[in-house]
C-alpha cells in the first residue's frame, strides 16, 4: 500500500503571515508576548518558543512538526510567562478548542489573548521522525478526525485554505474494534498498555486541562491513587485521568503524543467524548459554556442503567 502525500505547501505562506502579524502586534504593543513555534536543531523539528521582541518574530514558523498544543503555556506554566498586557498565541483548530474549554473553566479570559489561528492540514504523528514528510500514514491520528482545520474565533487567521482529504477516522475505528471485544479481552488490552506506564506524568503535564495546582494523584492524605508505577497504580491513574477529562477534553491528543511508552491515551478520551455526545449531545471545545456536561444535569437524563 502506498501512502498519500498530505498537501502542506501552504505552510510556508502561513509561516510568513504569522511572522508579519507577530511583528505587527508586538511592535504596536498590542501584545507583550507571543507563544508560537520555532525551528529546532533536529532536522525538520519544531519546538515551542516564547518571544517578547518584534525582532524575534521571524523565528516563528508553522510546519508539520508544530505538533504541540501551546494552550498549556497559558495555564499552569502561565506564571512563568511575563504577564503584562495581552498574550498572543499561535493556535491550530484543535488547540483552539482547548482554549475555549479553558475560558469556560475560568482559567483564561478571551480579552487577555490575541489568537493567531493557523489553517492546518495536519501535523506529524509522534511515532515518526520530525524530518518525515506528511502522508496519510505519518499524519497524527487525531488529524484523521479533525473537524477544525480552520480555527474559528481568532483575531487573525492567514487566508490560506488547507486541502484536507477524507481519511479513515483512526480513533473511531480503534474504539469500534475495542468495543466489539469482550470485557476480558479489553481488560487484557489495557492491562498490557498500562503496564508500560512509568508515571512520568508527561500526559498530565502537557494536558491543557490538567491545570490543578496539586494533582489528586500527588496527594497522600489520603492516597486516592497509588503513585508507584506498577500495574495497579498505573491503571488507577489512567482511569482517574480519563474520568477527570470527560466532557472537557477536546481531543488535542497531546497526552498520547508525548507518552514515551506509546500508550494510546487519547483512545480513552475519545471514547468518553463519544459517550458524552451520545448521552448528553455534548461536544467539547466549540463554544465557551458556563457549565460542562458533568457540572450540570437535566431532569430527564438517561437512567436506564439505574435500578
Amino acid at each position: 500500500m502506498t501512502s498519500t502525500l498530505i498537501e502542506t505547501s501552504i505552510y510556508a505562506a502561513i509561516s510568513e503571515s504569522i511572522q508579519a502579524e507577530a511583528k505587527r502586534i508586538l511592535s504596536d504593543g498590542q501584545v507583550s508576548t507571543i507563544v508560537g513555534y520555532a525551528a529546532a536543531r533536529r532536522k525538520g523539528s519544531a519546538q515551542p518558543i516564547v518571544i517578547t521582541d518584534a525582532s524575534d518574530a521571524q523565528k516563528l514558523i508553522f510546519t508539520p512538526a508544530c505538533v504541540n498544543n501551546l494552550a498549556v503555556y497559558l495555564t499552569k506554566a502561565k506564571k512563568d510567562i511575563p504577564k503584562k498586557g495581552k498574550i498572543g498565541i499561535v493556535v491550530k483548530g484543535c488547540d483552539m478548542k482547548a482554549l475555549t474549554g479553558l475560558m469556560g473553566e475560568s482559567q483564561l479570559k478571551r480579552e487577555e489573548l490575541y489568537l493567531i489561528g493557523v489553517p492546518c492540514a495536519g501535523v506529524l504523528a509522534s511515532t515518526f521522525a520530525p524530518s518525515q514528510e506528511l502522508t496519510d500514514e505519518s499524519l497524527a491520528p487525531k488529524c484523521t478526525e479533525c473537524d477544525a482545520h480552520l480555527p474559528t474565533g481568532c483575531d487573525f487567521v492567514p487566508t490560506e485554505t488547507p486541502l484536507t482529504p477524507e481519511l479513515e477516522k483512526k480513533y473511531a475505528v480503534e474504539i469500534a474494534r475495542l468495543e466489539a471485544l469482550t470485557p476480558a479481552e479489553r481488560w487484557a488490552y489495557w492491562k498490557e498498555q498500562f503496564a508500560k506506564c512509568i508515571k512520568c506524568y508527561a500526559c498530565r503535564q502537557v494536558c491543557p486541562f490538567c491545570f490543578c495546582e496539586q494533582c489528586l494523584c500527588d496527594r497522600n492524605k489520603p492516597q486516592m491513587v497509588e503513585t508507584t508505577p506498577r500495574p495497579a497504580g498505573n491503571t488507577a491513574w489512567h482511569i482517574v485521568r480519563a474520568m477527570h477529562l470527560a466532557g472537557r477534553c477536546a481531543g488535542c491528543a497531546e497526552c498520547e503524543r508525548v507518552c514515551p511508552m506509546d500508550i494510546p491515551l487519547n483512545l480513552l478520551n475519545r471514547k468518553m467524548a463519544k459517550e458524552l455526545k451520545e448521552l448528553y449531545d455534548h461536544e467539547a471545545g466549540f463554544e465557551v459554556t458556563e457549565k460542562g456536561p458533568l457540572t450540570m444535569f437535566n431532569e430527564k437524563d438517561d437512567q436506564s442503567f439505574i435500578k
Partner: protein
Amino acid sequence: MSRIGVFICHCGENISRTVDVERVARDVGRLPGVAFSTDYKYMCSDPGQTLLKKTIQEQKLSHVVVAACSPRMHEKTFRKAVEAAGLNPFLCEMANIREHCSWVHENIEEATIKATEIVGMMVERVKKNRVLPTITVPVTKRSLVIGGGIAGIQAALDIADAGHEVVLVEREPSIGGHMAQLSETFPTLDCSQCIMTPKMVDVANHPKIKLYTYSEIELVEGYIGNFQVTIKKKARSVNEDTCTGCGVCMTKCPQKKIPNKFDQNIGMRTAIYIPFPQAVPNTPVIDRENCTKFKTGKCGVCQKVCGPGAVDFEQEDSLIVEPVGAIVVATGFDLYTIDEKPKGSPIKGYGEFGHGKIADVIDGMTFERLASASGPTGGKILRPSDGKEPKQIVFIQCIGSRAREKGISYCSKVCCMYTAKHTMLYHHKVHGGQAYVFFMDARTPGKSYDEFWRRAIEEEDAVYIRGMVSRLYQKGDKIVVMGSDIAVGVQVEIEADMVVLATAIQPQKGADLLAQKLGISYDKYNFYSEAHAKLRPVECATAGIYLAGACQGPKDIPETVSQASAAAAKVMTLFSKDQLEREPIVARVREAGCVGCFACKKVCAYGAVEEKEIRDRQGNLIKVVAYVNPGVCAGCGTCQATCPSKCVELDGYTDEQVIAMIEAL
C-alpha cells in the same frame, strides 16, 4: 496513636440474639488504635451512657465507636454523652449492627463476622475524624417581605408585632394585592375591602414596618442571617414625604380615559392616580406612559395645582440597599391569560372561548370588580358591552386548570368556591336572573365550604351542569353557549347575556426572574418550591428564605394567611437567637490548592460557593479561589466529588474518612 473506645450494645436481645457481641468486642479490641472495648445490655439507657462517659474519662479515650442501632436513631444521644464527657461530639461514630445486621440476618456466624467488619470500618473512620466546632452565623434581625398582598401584609404584621423590623416591598403603587380587588369573600360573604383595608392601614402605621411601594427587588446578596437586598424604587414623580394625599391633582388631570388595571381595565383613571380610593400609601403616582407632560412636554397641570409642591417630574429611579436576616417571598398569583398564548410559555390559550373578542365574555376577577361596591359600576352587575343587566349568566369552571393539553395539569383550587360565590352575588344583585355553571367536579373541602356550595344550588337557584363547554359564539346580543351535560347525557345550548370564565391561577409574571435573584428553585409553572412538600412547606431549600401564599401554589385566603403567619413564625424562630448555630458538616476550600475552575460553584444547588480573591501583602491579585459560605452550605458534598483536585472537602465526610473505611474492609 489514637485511644479508641468501642462499646457494643446488646439492645436487650435485639442484637445479641444473632450477633455474638462478646466476640465482636474481643475481636475489635485487637484492632490497631483500639484502647478499650466492651459490650453492654443497653447503651442508650442512663447506666449505658454513664458507662460511656466514665470510660472516656478513666481510659482517656480519644475517639468513641458505639455499635448499636442506626445512627438515625441514637447518633445525637451518644454524641451528646460524649460531649458531656469532654470530647468533641464529632469524635463519636455509630456502627449500625442492628438495622443493618442483627435484624436482617439469622445465621449467627455470618452476622457476627459482618458486625465485626462494620465496627472495624467505623473504627478506621473515627480515627480520621476531626474536632469540628459548631458553626455560628450572626443574624441581622430584620426581615424582608416581598409582595404586599394579603400574604405579605400578614407576614409583615406578625413579624413586626414580634418587635422585629420589616422591609415590605410591593411592585404596584399600593399594597393590597388581589384581595383588595375582590368584592365579597367565601364562605362568609363578608366584604373583602372591609377586612383588608384595616390591615393595610396597620401596615402603613406600624413603626416597625418600612414600606416600599412601586418598588422591585434588584439584587439579593448574602445568605441566611446576612442578606443585602438592593431595592429599586421606581420614580413615582410625586414626593411621598410632602404629598398630603388631598387628590386635587387627580381631579384636575386632563387625561381621564386610561383603563384602570385595578378594575380589570373596565373602569377608567387619570394619568396621575392612585389605583383605588383606599390605596396605601395614599400617594398618587404619575403613569409616565400616558401623561401628556411626559409625552409632549406640555401640561404640568398637576404640578401647578399641588399645594405642597409634591409633584416632581424630574424624579428618578433610586436604588436602596437594605440589610436583612430573613426573606419572606409572597409574590402571589396572576390569572391565566385566556386570549393569548403567553410568550415563551408552554401554556396554550383558550382563544375558542372568545375572551377579548366577545365583550361580554369576562373572567372571574372582572366579575369581582363588577360586583364590588367600590367598582366601576358601583356594585351593579352590568354587561361591559352595553351596560345592560344580564338576565342569563353562564359560569364556566376549570378554564386552564386541570387541562394537561393546555399546559397546566394542576387544579387552581379556589375556582369552585368563587364561582359558587359569584352565582350567589349574581342572585342577590340581579333579581329574576338565572345563573348556570358548567363544571367538571366541585372541589369544596374546607371548613363550611361544601355547605356554601350546596347553598348556591339549593338556596340560591344556581343550575350546575356537569360537563364542559365546547363552543361559544355571539348571536345578536346573546352569547350562545354549547356544552354537554354528562350527568344526563344531553347536549345543552344556553343563550346567555354574559359568560364568566373561572380562569386558572398562575404565578406572577417574572416569578422565575425573582427566583433567580433569590437563588431559590421553582417548578415548571414557575411556582416556588418548598424545601419539603410535607415537612418543610414554608421554607425554601435556600436557608433563610420562606414562602407565603399563592406564589408557591394556588391557595385561598385563609390558607394564605395561615402560611404567612407560619412563615413569620419561622422568621421569628430564626430571630430568637443572636447567633445561628448549625451542624458543622459543611464544605471547606483548601485555598492553597484551589485553581478557581469553579466546578464546585457550578454544581452547588444552594449558591453556597462564592469567588474569593487572594492578594499578596501589596494588594496584588494572586488568584481567585472558591469560598464556601458555611452559613449557606447544606453539606451534600457534591462539590467535593466534582472538584478535580479535591481542594474542597466536606467536614465529617472527608476523603480520608471514606478511604479509611474502604481500606478497612
